[in-house]
């Protein structure tokens, strides 16, 4: 029973609550860094590292942090880990740092991370929070790699830099550009909708689960988030 539970937490982020495709969180880095498999994987890995570490630390501190300053505390912890990851990437993978650029520090405002801190880590034990971080991180990375594969295959004709389609046809570089990002994201999400076919789970609004006031929010429209106490949105 106990073991199954842990497995469920891990699997939750992969499929049922896939942060990108089902919760619609973290759209900016998803679109911006899925231009190639390597970029998507690098971004996914960096965000996963931050997610796991911040989930663990916030879970440890959940009894110490006063409710009134919890958001600033979470942000500080997350920003700290982001900077550490940024320095590590700069030192050991300078090429990745160059291609991720601005989006590396922007992991701070990735709503997946703050969303999981607020929704999961501050209510659950350290181990559960770590598992949740791993699951969500894998879900994020997996989606980025899938989208990166599609965009790289069609856009550049390569996969991970290995020529595949480019042997038979030139790449359609529009796929690696901005419109291609929106387009592939739309198609992948529509495909997930199609295969799950469970409309009750599909959100027609955006990222509400990551919002701190999701309980009070009636239908995902911001106008109804009257209390305005929630800062999580991005």
């Amino acid at each position: 029973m106990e073991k199954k539970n842990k497995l469920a937490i891990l699997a939750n982020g992969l499929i049922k609550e896939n942060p990108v495709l089902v919760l619609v969180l973290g759209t900016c880095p998803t679109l911006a860094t899925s231009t190639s498999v390597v970029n998507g994987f690098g971004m996914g890995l960096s965000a996963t590292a931050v997610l796991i570490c911040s989930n663990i630390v916030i879970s440890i501190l959940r009894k110490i942090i006063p409710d009134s300053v919890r958001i600033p505390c979470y942000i500080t912890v997350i920003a700290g880990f982001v900077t550490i990851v940024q320095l590590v990437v700069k030192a050991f993978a300078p090429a990745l740092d160059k291609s991720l650029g601005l989006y590396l520090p922007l992991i701070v405002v990735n709503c997946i991370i703050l969303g999981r801190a607020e929704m999961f880590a501050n209510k659950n034990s350290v181990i559960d929070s770590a598992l949740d971080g791993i699951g969500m991180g894998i879900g994020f990375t997996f989606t980025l790699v899938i989208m990166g594969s599609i965009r790289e295959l069609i856009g550049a004709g390569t996969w991970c830099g290995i020529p595949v389609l480019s042997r038979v046809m030139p790449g359609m570089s529009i796929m690696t550009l901005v419109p291609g990002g929106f387009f592939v994201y739309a198609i992948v999400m529509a495909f997930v909708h199609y295969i799950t076919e469970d409309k009750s789970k599909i959100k027609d609004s955006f990222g509400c689960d990551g919002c701190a006031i999701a309980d009070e929010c009636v239908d995902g429209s911001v106008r109804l988030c009257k209390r305005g106490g929630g800062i999580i949105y991005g």
Partner: protein
Amino acid sequence: MAKYVIIIISMVLVNNYPLAQFLGICPFLGVSKDMDSARGMGIAVTFVMVLATAVTWPIQQFLDSKGIGYLQTVVFILVIAALVQLIEMFMKKNMVGLYKSLGVFLPLITTNCAVLGVCISNIDSGYNYPQSLFNAFGAGLGFLFAMIIMAGVRGKLVDQSRIPKSFQGVPIVLLTAAIMSLSFMGFGGMFS
């Protein structure tokens, strides 16, 4: 002066944040359901962007002078969070009318990546103080512009247009954004 005009036009059309740089996508997709919210969010973001740049740019100079530039991310995000909180408190007390129309959006802005993004990119591109302020203003205007267009298009999307079941909701909005960004690519190279 021409230099500043170029910065603003290039941020609105060529380097439009949501449509060309993937910054501020969440509110761009999420708050563009109706025109009023879109306009309110756009104005609030522009306001916070300029103010945040006005505060973070001098802070970065201070951090650099002390050799602790690596604290950038931590300090910036905390400053933005505090700033938004202060603006909200100030508006609530002194500008009730404005607070009613913009106030609800303010708390959502802290984690808007466009705000932190503009602060960091001002530093990265080595802009001086006035250039940074104009850059932030232009970025905000571009965001407002994109929000209003998107809200207009989504107003027409709703009922009669028979959208396939799988595409209802988020995917059709993303497709709309794809076509919009495709047309914005036409502005590329305006200043080359």
